[in-house]
């Protein structure tokens, strides 16, 4: 075992230019966030206070209903990011590389959902028997995305198991482009639409008397919660889950316990794919439009969510997703608008990645990440 030399060298390490730069970044970003928030509070108290009238003369403040809307849309968006992030995190946990084609698994789920739900709509079942059709659509989408993920592992990644981690990573980018182009070849480049949700579902609902929520967003939250609980049960309570956790930590020792490592890796891809499939359907139901590149941005954001939560950590992936989705939805109006920045709602994507940068600056292992020693990651 190596003596703890690195610990010592860390304590006596001199402060370099990079450290100072990072410190300035931290202070500047925290300051920007804190000042923005204080000015937001100021605006809420009096939209025409003397700071707001200089920096942001158009300030109006947010109503409680608007604020509630932001939080709910952030939560539902975040739940979908979280579902996708789980796939990144699990595969990273088990194989130690980022599967950039995971966004395309999500796209396959969304596309399959689009095709099947339109079939149901043509048959009139979508309107008359919505929940049953949704269940079938979900099932088919889960099967397709799971198969995509498992095939990907078998065809593209398994042969690269022993190679440096950069190689499967680059391969995954190739797989990602391949799947996008397959989708274009099969379904054409134009955006496809999901059928409209039945009226009884899409209307606003009151929850607990004081929260009003759009039907589709409520549906997203319910389905996402169920999917996550199912996953939690699988990972924590079943034999398969135990094998997955053991393989994630030490493949060689896991195999000594009699665990079939290859099968466990396939299971990991399958479960991640299923979660991405569920997210794909939810995305389609909520935004109703899918294209071959639908997987790209949510994929990258979900990856960021996985990193924000601490990659390799299931709970972290969820928390990261909700953090990112929430920040994306709330931060533009709460933290940016008081600075007098125009068109803040266009800055959603920038906010998402700023959250990533900020978290990496402050806590490089992510919110729930544990420090991985080189010994763990050998």
């Amino acid at each position, binding site marked *: *075992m190596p003596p703890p030399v690195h610990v010592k060298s860390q304590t006596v390490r001199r402060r370099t230019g990079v450290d100072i730069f990072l410190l300035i970044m931290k202070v500047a970003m925290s300051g920007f966030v804190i000042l923005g928030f204080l000015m937001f509070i100021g605006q809420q108290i009096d939209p025409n206070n003397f700071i707001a009238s200089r920096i942001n003369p158009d300030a109006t403040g947010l109503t409680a209903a608007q604020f509630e809307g932001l939080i709910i849309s952030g939560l539902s968006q975040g739940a979908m990011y979280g579902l996708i992030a789980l796939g990144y995190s699990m595969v990273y946990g088990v194989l130690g590389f980022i599967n950039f084609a995971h966004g395309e698994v999500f796209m396959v789920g969304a596309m399959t959902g689009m095709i099947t739900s339109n079939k149901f709509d043509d048959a009139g079942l979508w309107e008359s028997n919505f929940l049953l059709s949704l269940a079938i659509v979900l099932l088919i989408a889960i099967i397709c995305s799971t198969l995509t993920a498992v095939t990907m592992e078998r065809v593209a990644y398994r042969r690269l198991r022993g190679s440096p981690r950069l190689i499967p990573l680059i391969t995954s980018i190739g797989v990602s482009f391949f799947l996008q182009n397959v989708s274009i070849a099969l379904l054409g480049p134009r955006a496809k639409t999901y059928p409209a949700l039945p009226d009884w579902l899409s209307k606003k609902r009151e929850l607990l008397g004081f929260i009003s929520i759009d039907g589709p967003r409520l549906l997203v939250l319910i389905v996402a919660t169920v999917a996550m609980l199912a996953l939690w049960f699988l990972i924590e309570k079943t*034999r398969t889950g*135990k*094998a997955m*956790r*053991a393989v994630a*930590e*030490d493949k*060689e*020792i*896991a*195999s*000594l*316990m*009699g*665990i*079939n490592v290859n099968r466990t890796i396939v299971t990991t891809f399958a479960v991640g794919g299923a979660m991405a499939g569920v997210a794909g359907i939810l995305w389609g139901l909520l935004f109703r439009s899918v294209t071959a590149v639908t997987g790209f941005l949510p994929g990258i954001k979900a990856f960021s969510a996985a990193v924000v939560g601490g990659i390799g950590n299931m709970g972290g992936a969820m928390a990261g997703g909700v953090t990112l989705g929430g920040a994306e939805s709330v931060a533009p109006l709460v933290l940016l608008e008081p600075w007098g920045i125009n068109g803040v709602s266009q800055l959603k994507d920038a906010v998402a990645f700023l959250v990533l940068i900020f978290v990496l600056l402050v806590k490089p292992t992510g919110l729930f990440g*544990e420090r991985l020693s080189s010994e*763990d990651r050998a």
Partner: protein
Amino acid sequence: MNTTNDTTNGTASGTTALLEMRGVNTHYGAVHILKDVEFAIYPGELVCLLGGNASGKSTTLKTLLGMVTPTTGDVFLNGEVVTKESISYRVERGVTMVPENRRLFKRLSVKDNLKLGAFLRKNRSEIDADLERIFTMFPRVKERLSQKAGTLSGGEQQMVAMGRALMSDPKVLLMDEPSMGLAPALVQTNFELIQQIHSEGVAIFVVEQNANMALSIADRGWVLQTGRVVLDDTADALLANPDLRASYLGEG
């Protein structure tokens, strides 16, 4: 001590060997690692395999467990040829290894670590009974059950590592370098644990560089040098052997 000097060449005596290697040659690519290695471990024995760095000790273990397939020769488990069988096949039939440096699943709880040891077993009540047996053997482990394994002290981790191996209900326990990288006091505890487990009737195969320590508890031993078994004798005879003293005990 005087059990079996005459039985090392296969099944000459009446009992079947628990674990046996016959004429095993193992190659890594073109490199010839194990050369005609032969030995047998009988039920209830405590035996050791000694050797320096690069002598082929770990390859021997890997071959026994099925992580490496020998080029020629066979591995027997309870008289059955298992040369081509998977690790899990062998684990199910009674071989388990306690790896070098313990290698616990550090982020999992102690309980999960122990239960993973019983991964291939189906009978719940038997598993629970074995869990209880481990608690009586190592009461400290029971107190730490819900703690993450990585947070335990070195000695406690060693107990969990052995407990985890015992959870597979092994007939023979392979110990890979139990003294490696441990403080002297811990090495002592470790070897006491080994004797304790041995007294419960489990055969133990210790693979060690620390010849003195291993021979002090073993019945007999083999010495491996550049992939070949060069000495094969009782522990007392090996301890007295001038060649061994010269090459492994740093004397002469």
